[in-house]
């Protein structure tokens, strides 16, 4: 392997890890505040559709991004309403959102454009072009979200309160701070980040929306979140690792390794899931979620 191939792999690993990273950070914000979010996939999908539809309608990638974010936040608020205000089961709500997103994007896409659920192909200003080193602005926005997340969560009063709400909401409530408001804020931030992830897929990476184009990325992001133990910089590492696996799966196809023989591409695809299961089993290290995540907060009367 010469340097050229390595650069190619690195480059496509970065490309592939961006949507994972945005969704992973979304999950991080949400779960750090105590709201479990397995609806990352659904929010991404809705944002990908709304983003492409918006970019097509207004002829601008940025308008598409904005509309994608709005759609994703709206879905996030449904999840927030169910899990924060109504104290419903957060897993059930996440499953519902994933199903809703898969169905709605396909049916609305088909009704609007009549192309089997696809949006019309985007071209020119309707897509994010490259601004630096062949990558679009979105890539840098998402990368920038890592230090911002790290700083805000770890080094500001707001971040401290938000993390506290995910660990011990009663203590935060006792201090006179609204648990509900903090959790809604986190859910909205998660919506914005999922919006970035989705819009990146349909308006940045591809040229338009395809039915079910997220193809499980929301769940890989969830795996990366566990892998990163709910922290921002490790999230970057985990997502890049999974992106790298994805990128090398294409390069390694048909390649024979000494002693192992031909590596099936599925074995590489299975790695993120397998690694997460092994990590969760506590064989290597331990992944401990925020203590109050998944638990609705009931104010004592």
């Amino acid at each position, binding site marked *: 392997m010469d340097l050229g191939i390595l650069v190619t792999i690195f480059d496509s690993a970065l490309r592939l890890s961006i949507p994972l990273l945005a969704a992973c950070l979304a999950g991080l914000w949400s779960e750090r505040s105590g709201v479990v979010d*397995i609806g990352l996939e659904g929010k991404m999908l809705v944002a990908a559709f709304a983003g492409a539809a918006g970019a097509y309608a207004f002829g601008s990638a940025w308008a598409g991004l904005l509309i994608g974010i709005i759609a994703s936040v709206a879905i996030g608020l*449904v999840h927030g309403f*169910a*899990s924060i205000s*109504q*104290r*419903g*089961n*957060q*897993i*059930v*709500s996440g*499953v*519902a*959102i*994933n*199903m*809703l*997103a*898969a*169905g*709605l994007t*396909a*049916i*609305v896409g*088909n*009704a*609007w454009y009549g192309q089997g*659920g696809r949006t019309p192909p985007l071209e020119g200003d309707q897509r994010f072009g490259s601004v630096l080193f062949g990558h679009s602005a979105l890539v840098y926005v998402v990368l920038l979200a890592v230090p911002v997340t790290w700083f805000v969560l770890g080094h500001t009063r707001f971040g401290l309160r938000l993390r506290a709400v995910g660990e011990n909401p009663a203590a935060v409530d006792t201090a006179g701070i609204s648990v509900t408001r903090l959790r809604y804020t986190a859910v909205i931030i998660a919506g914005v980040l999922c919006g970035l992830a989705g819009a990146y897929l349909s308006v940045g990476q591809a040229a338009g929306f395809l039915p079910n184009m997220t193809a*499980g990325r929301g*769940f890989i992001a*969830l*795996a990366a979140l*566990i892998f990163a133990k709910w922290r921002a910089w490790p999230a970057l590492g985990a997502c890049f690792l999974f992106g790298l696996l994805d990128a090398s799966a294409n390069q390694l196809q048909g390649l024979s390794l000494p002693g192992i023989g031909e590596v*099936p591409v*599925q*074995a590489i*695809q*299975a790695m993120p*899931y*397998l690694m*997460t*299961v092994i990590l*969760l*089993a*506590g064989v290597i290290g331990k992944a401990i*979620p925020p203590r109050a995540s998944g638990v609705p907060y009931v104010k004592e009367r």
Partner: protein
Amino acid sequence: MSAPLDLPRWADTVLVPAISVVAAFLVAGLVVLAIGENPLTATRWLLQGSLGTGEGLGFTLFYMTDFIFVGLAVAVAYHAGLFNIGGEGQATLAGLGIALVLNNLTFLPGFLLIPLGILGAAAFGALWAAIPGYLQAKRGSHIVITTIMFNWLASVLIVYLLVNVLREPQSMNPETRAFPDQSHIPFMHDVFAAFGIEIPASQLNLTLVLALAAAYFVWLLIYRSRLGYAIRVVGSNPSAAVYAGISPARIIIIAMVLSGALAGGLAVNELMGYQHRLLLEFTSGYGFVGIAVALMGRAHPVGIILASLLFGILYQGGAELAFEQPAITRDMVVVIGGIIILFAGALDGLFRRLVAHLFARQKLARA
């Protein structure tokens, strides 16, 4: 928000789910309106296509069979306080079990091969659920995350096996060769024909009887057996279970094994009853429909059968509807499923409070 939540039993088990389902259909109707179609005509096509003809009814009952199995699978785990969203993966593995048994024991007569195939499905489904169950019970890994990961592992594994190992040598399609004839579970129309009664031909096969038997078995297990009692105790209060001498870890694993075996029924109906070979993506997302079915049916076998019938109507009627009104594709059924999960599952409290509020008012009016 502080309305009393003690509802009469019938209101809790029948009225609240009924109201949430009606609300779900109203929202679905709005979606249909939003894409410029008439929800009333759509409903008519839906019912006509699923119940209006003998053939349609057969297909409705075929889908219902699928949903009873996955619904029961979710319900059994749910009673143990576990959320098994791995039905897809468990059914996929069950399909693998079926293919391995049927295509390797082709010399056996049907009366042996069919039960063995069903056992193979149950065993492989159970195994794929037992691992997350074990990891939850012994290592504390969250069952929701592990079952999600196991769904993806199953789909990757089955692609690998069908493309590289199990594919029929001459075939371009990633699917196994056809199962031996004697292993096919008889179609209902053939069974009836044997008694001289003619019914329209459809995919409906005898697996429906197995599904109903499984529902009865689950009822016996959960509400009439020692083990079922232990499962429910662990589900409602694990620390109380420990005081009662029940090992939650053991019960968790057993509940997941049963749940995975039940999910295997989906593969029995789809593969042994209809497709007669193992192919990719035969589960078609039905594992997730099982969640809707179990939530709507309040995790009770009778409720699950009724909810499965409703989803059978939706799936079959939805296919006919997509044919008559192409703008309303079958994705509409997925949307309805999602809304039902949201309303009957996550927003359950909202509807419960609503009903409780109405009851409290009525009481006041009478007083």
